[in-house]
């Protein structure tokens, strides 16, 4: 009998350290599937962030570098500039990318660096225990906003896909979700496009994933998915924010 569903070659056999219900596992799998399907494992370099995904290199079977907090886009720039033939992606959370690494991501995107960023938005700092992030929603309680995010004091949550698509240079900016199968199917398509653009030598691409953090949200995995749909999707709207001019949207 033929196997119809198996572990992608780009994923290792290790079980992950991620919490039950965490969506990193889904995104890891999508990355691995796309890398397998495009046949690029032997020339791919991933960049792990500081955050929950710092150990991502344990779960993939290709080269990896581990960046300082927020600096993954600068590290990717260094790799891609000296080895344009390698396929390079950064894998970053919202604290890493939208807070401490805001400078690096904006300038890498604006220079049109030819790598792909996977941006996992779950509205909190996960690894350090659920502190407020630039993406924390208005009124959302975290360990450093115990009374809920007060936008009078710290402003509104940052919308990365919208912000980066205001730049002229980047090729492809999209926001996807991994909350339900219908979203996951679309997210994988978007991710594959982003990598294909890189293979084709097009400039910077970013796929934002609306994700959950049941542990730090204090919810069960199922409740967390509902919370994300009810609260994140109205504010962080899904869709293609920027596509290369000469490529048709599907």
């Amino acid at each position, binding site marked *: 009998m033929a196997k119809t569903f198996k572990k992608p070659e780009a994923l290792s056999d290790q079980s992950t350290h991620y919490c039950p219900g965490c969506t990193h596992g889904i995104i890891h799998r999508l990355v691995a599937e796309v890398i397998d399907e495009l046949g690029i*494992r*032997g*020339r*791919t*370099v991933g*960049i*792990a962030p500081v955050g929950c995904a*710092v*150990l991502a*290199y344990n779960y*993939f*079977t*290709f*080269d*990896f*570098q*581990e*960046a*300082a907090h927020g*600096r993954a886009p*600068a*590290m*990717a*720039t*260094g*790799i891609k*500039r*000296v*080895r344009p*033939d*390698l396929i390079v992606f950064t894998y970053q959370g919202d604290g890493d990318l939208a807070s401490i690494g805001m*400078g*690096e991501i904006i*300038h890498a995107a604006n220079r049109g660096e030819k790598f792909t960023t996977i941006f996992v938005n779950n509205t909190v700092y996960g690894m350090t225990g659920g502190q407020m992030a630039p993406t924390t929603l208005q009124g959302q309680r975290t360990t450093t906003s115990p009374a809920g995010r007060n936008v009078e004091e710290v402003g509104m949550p940052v919308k990365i896909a919208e912000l980066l698509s205001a730049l002229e240079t980047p090729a492809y900016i999209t926001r996807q979700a991994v909350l339900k199968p219908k979203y996951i199917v679309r997210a994988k398509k978007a991710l594959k496009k982003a990598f294909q653009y890189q293979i084709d030598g097009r400039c910077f691409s970013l796929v934002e994933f609306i994700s959950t953090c049941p542990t730090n949200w204090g919810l069960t995995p199922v409740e967390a998915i509902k919370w994300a749909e009810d609260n994140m999707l109205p504010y962080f709207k899904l869709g293609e924010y920027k596509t290369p001019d000469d490529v048709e949207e599907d």
Partner: protein
Amino acid sequence: MGKILMKGNEAIGEAAIRAGCLNYFAYPITPQSEVAEYLSRRMPEVGGVFLQGESEIAVGNMLFGAAGCGARVFTTSSSPGISLMSEAISYISSAQCPVVFVNIVRGGPGLGGILPSQADYFQATKGGGHGDYRLLVMAPASVQEAVEMVMTAFPLAEKYRNPVMILGDGLIGQMMEPVEFPEHLRTEPSNKDDWATNGMDTRKSNKPNLVKSLFLSAELLEEHNVILKAKYDRMKQEEVRYEPYNIDTDYQALIVSFGTMSRVCRTVIDDLKAEGFETAMIRPQTLFPFPEEPIKQAALKESCKIVLSIELNMGQMVEDVERSVQGTRPVHWYGKAGGDVPTPEEVIDVIKSFF
């Protein structure tokens, strides 16, 4: 080829290319921006990479990425810029990536000034960033020596898989001197297949490489630091470089001085000799590893009454000189913060004040 007249900063850029380094990332800062200007023209001519990053923080991490995937890579900056790169330098040291940093030191602290200084001695030799790490630090005293040190730095960085820093100063960067580029120092980058993320296809392997600095278990972190320490200990054994001056005389004072300041001290030693008063100098060419033993031995000479650390800062290297001399002779410091380089007359007055 013969000698040509070149500004220090431009000569440093050219030396890197001649050494076989075709990848340069940098951010403009006085007094070393001429390196970036020079290489923005030269790198395209030789098919190399030139990129002006958005900050020194980013540049440091671009170097980390580039070196991590196996490329020979370098940057130039000046003091405040090196402070910002220190985050990356700590990571690069831990991940054991070869990168060459050139610091054309200016006065500090803070914005300080843009004139020559040696105030980054501590930062370079004791670690500007966090954690237990050491850089191999070389200090040129002329444009020619800067060229030779830059060319030597790349194979050394690869030998130890460790960052190497050239600690120059604004004078070395800005002055024009005759230089000759030694062809024989050009080396091919070493094979990095066993660790660099150069792509599994590139090295025809099915085993991923990982460049990282995180060791969550106490045992693994300990083991990692022991490996790093062994490298630094090996540098102390194999890489100490220094130049003695007037050391065969019955000198009464031993000067320890490096870089631009050491050139003033040579004049001091010559002038005092003409007066019939012998002094000598040990000029450290490597600041880490520090020439502890040569300084100790030179201080022990019977005629030698005092040891003087003369620096363009408020007294930093003097701590290493004291450590080397181990209390066998009185150690004094003289220096200025930078910008205003002490004249030979000033230094002579200081030396005479002890006799």
